[in-house]
């Protein structure tokens, strides 16, 4: 089955591990995710103002490119891209006046934006659709591993784009169980990593990272899995900074969800550049027989 794939900027740089492992995992289930021949930065944050539609252009143009490939589904791995593309599609698509304004402005796109260009899908939903039986059948390296799922914000909020119940999501826990891991229950799995404040107000990120990691470790986590490059940085690089400052701080390695799946499914470890991780996951993965 073929579907279109929108990487977004970071998947080509600091989050390359996410892309390589996700695409390889999908291939195992006969899914070919074809990168869009033409795509643009999604803008990262969905602009929440009502009166400046210029700020919606970036995501919309990508959606129109996706429509032109003829594919009904557009996969995006980064949670921030997912959120922005979906919210932009809804915001402009649902209102005739806004659509008219945007279409009047966009002269060179080869058509009008209608709002139903593609079905934007995230990796977790795609894996859920594949189904636990097929996933279980692919286990090559069965592993006993306590994994703390970290959802972050943008896959679950606002409700209009949520892939699961924001108050009690279970989609990652179910997928982890399907591949033989033990999901760890801890209270901060949907608390924000503090996102872009790493630039200007890093103390907020430090506070959140400390809270999230401490709780996960307290509840027995041996690994933390994420779905977003910014969450990864905040939970990985900042964790390393905290560990440097506090010798007794217990760390836990942070992987993209598909990195874990790829290893369990027996895909080559070379898909990953473990050097980009600040908290080295290699010792844990070796100890568990995944490497």
């Amino acid at each position, binding site marked *: 089955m073929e579907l279109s794939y929108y990487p977004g900027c970071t998947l080509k740089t600091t989050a390359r591990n996410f892309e390589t492992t996700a695409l390889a995992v999908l291939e195992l289930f006969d899914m070919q995710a074809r990168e869009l021949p033409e795509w643009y930065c999604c803008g990262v944050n969905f602009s929440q103002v009502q009166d400046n539609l210029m700020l919606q252009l970036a995501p919309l143009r990508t959606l129109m490119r996706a429509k032109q490939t003829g594919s009904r589904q557009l996969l995006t791995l980064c949670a921030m891209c997912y959120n922005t593309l979906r919210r932009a599609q809804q915001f402009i698509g649902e209102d005739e006046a806004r659509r008219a304004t945007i279409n009047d402005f966009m002269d060179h796109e080869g058509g009008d934006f209608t709002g139903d260009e593609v079905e934007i899908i995230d990796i977790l939903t795609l894996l859920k659709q594949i189904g636990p039986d097929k996933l279980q059948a692919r286990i090559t390296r069965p592993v006993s591993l306590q994994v703390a799922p970290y959802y972050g914000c943008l896959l679950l909020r606002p409700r209009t784009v949520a892939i699961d*119940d924001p*108050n*009690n999501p279970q989609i990652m826990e179910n997928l982890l169980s399907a591949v033989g891991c033990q999901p760890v229950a801890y*209270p901060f799995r949907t608390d924000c990593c503090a996102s872009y404040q790493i630039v200007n107000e890093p103390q907020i990120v430090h506070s959140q990272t400390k809270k999230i990691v401490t709780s996960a470790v307290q509840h027995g986590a041996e690994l933390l899995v994420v779905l977003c490059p910014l969450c990864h940085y905040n939970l990985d690089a900042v964790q390393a900074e905290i560990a440097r400052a506090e010798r007794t701080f217990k760390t836990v390695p942070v992987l993209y969800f598909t990195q874990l799946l790829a290893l369990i499914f027996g895909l080559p470890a070379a898909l990953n550049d473990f050097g980009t991780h600040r908290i080295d996951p290699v010792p844990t993965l070796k100890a568990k027989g995944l490497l």
Partner: protein
Amino acid sequence: MKKIGVFICHCGINIAGTVDVKGIAEKLKNYPGVVFIQDYKYMCSDPGQNLIREQIRELGLEAVVVAACSPTLHEATFRRAVESVGMNPYECEIANIREQCSWVHHDKTAATAKAEIIIKSVIEKARLDEDLAPVQVPITRRALVIGGGVAGMQAALNIANSGFEVLLVEKNPSIGGRMAQLSETFPTLDCSQCILTPKMVEVAQHPRIKLLTYSELTDVSGFVGNFRVTIRQKARYVDWQKCTGCGVCMEKCPVKVASEFDSQLANRRAIYTPFPQAVPNKPVLDRPHCTYFKTGKCQICKKLCPFDAIDYDQQDVVLTEEVGAIVVATGYDLYGLEHLPEYGAGNIPDVIDGLTFERILSASGPFSGEVRRPSDGKVPQEVVFIKCVGSRDPENHYPYCSKVCCMYTTKHAMLYKHRVPDGQAYVFYMDVRADGKGYEEFYQRAAEEDKVLYLRGKVAKMYRDNGKIIVCGYDTLSGENVEIGADLVVLATAIRPAQGAVELAKLLKIQVDQHGFLTEAHPKLRPVESLTAGIFLAGCAQSPRDIPDTVAQAAGAASMVTTLFARECLYHEPITTGVNEELCSGCGICVAVCPYDARQLHREKHVVEVNEVLCEGCGACAAACPSGAAQQRNFKDAQLINMIKAILT
């Protein structure tokens, strides 16, 4: 030609301000059949009515047209007036020149012309009106009360004490309802069962109340004064004639089932009474949980019963009864914790709802009145109460206020402090609604005397941590985020209609609102009646309310029932549609069209018959009849055609 008198009302300036009533009186004084026409300031007043009476007497009027406000207001008034001097009331017609004319137009010339046309058309109707007599409908002076909680019991007692027989149907094995589950009631802190059980016994012993517990209504037909109801008495597999309530079977039954009455905190047996003070105090056998019915083994209860009262072959009994009025008092359920993922979705044992806390507080509850928590039986030292859980939440749950939670949470906090004086109680609230007698004073006591800490704000999140429940809330009064390590959390969840209430409403053909609460006939002026004549409402089935309001409303519903029964008979409007058998070809179109099932095709005679009592005079059959065999009394085709002609010329 029929002598018609026309009386045009000014209604102060309501009509006369826009319609030239004097002008119309002048214009129509020579209209065919009009022997008297006059305008008057207020026709509905005594002098106004006397004017009509005088002219009937003096001129021998044969029909009267009053041009005034809507007939819904004063048609009855004027008809009574003409009847008092010997005219048939159905010869009195109203021409609505207010709601349908003066109140909706500004242009005086156009409004006057329109009023004239309206009056002319009604004169034409009156011209061909016939004397009619209201249809007499007999009344079965017996009431059915559905629901054996305090509302149903109160209504049943009031009706029975007025001398009428009452059937009280309750789906649970015992009457008592929610009030039987409560520990103490606010604001007096009376023991709930102590004040309730005398009523339960009175109901059981009342010679005019037939109590049918473990039973449900399965069918209803008929209309006010003449309902036919079918009730299914579920098989209880115990012969209650032989059973003495000795309790041996319950003691020895090996099967344990989580008790619904005790909010799943304790167990009952497969053969059980729901609580010790149950009325009737005879057990029922819960078939789905019974070992004998599942596997054919056991039979311990049968072997041990000294009175040979166990009967595994017992069948459901289906009764058909005739009643004249029905009171619906089906009560409430609490919004389930499974709907609240932000508070653990019912998976945290020490996060409970209000009724569960009542069972913990209750002297006859699972902990004999000691405040202990469900998970480990420890006495909680830090208890958090949260109000407005699922209520006042249009975005995620219910938009309305559940009314009683402010008071019962105050009560809970106080009772907790009385039993665990060293403990700390916190109440997260948005408002405190203490509107009843003694309620505000009661709430102040909780804060001042029992030092309950009221925190104004909601709780965004809670999670388990090492035997505690970490509650993350806010206090807007101090502007602080507040985190409490609670041992026990009590949620005041929303009150919603009892399960099965919506299905019952469909059966009875009464209305419910979008949340399933029964709809009253008028929100202000008719709070105990449904929109269906003869069916009345009481208690939380209609909307959340406390015990005094419930009892008052039940008494109100009972009063409406006895008022109905006090009449000799019911009178049904005679503007029904008959059948001219000579013209009727038996095509049956009118039967299909009738919304009230009032018409039936007679197989042998091949003509249609009509039940005058069911016919509501909507006219659908008259419009549909191709041969004119269906003519509505005083709305005959000839009358309508003349009215149209008067309007168009």
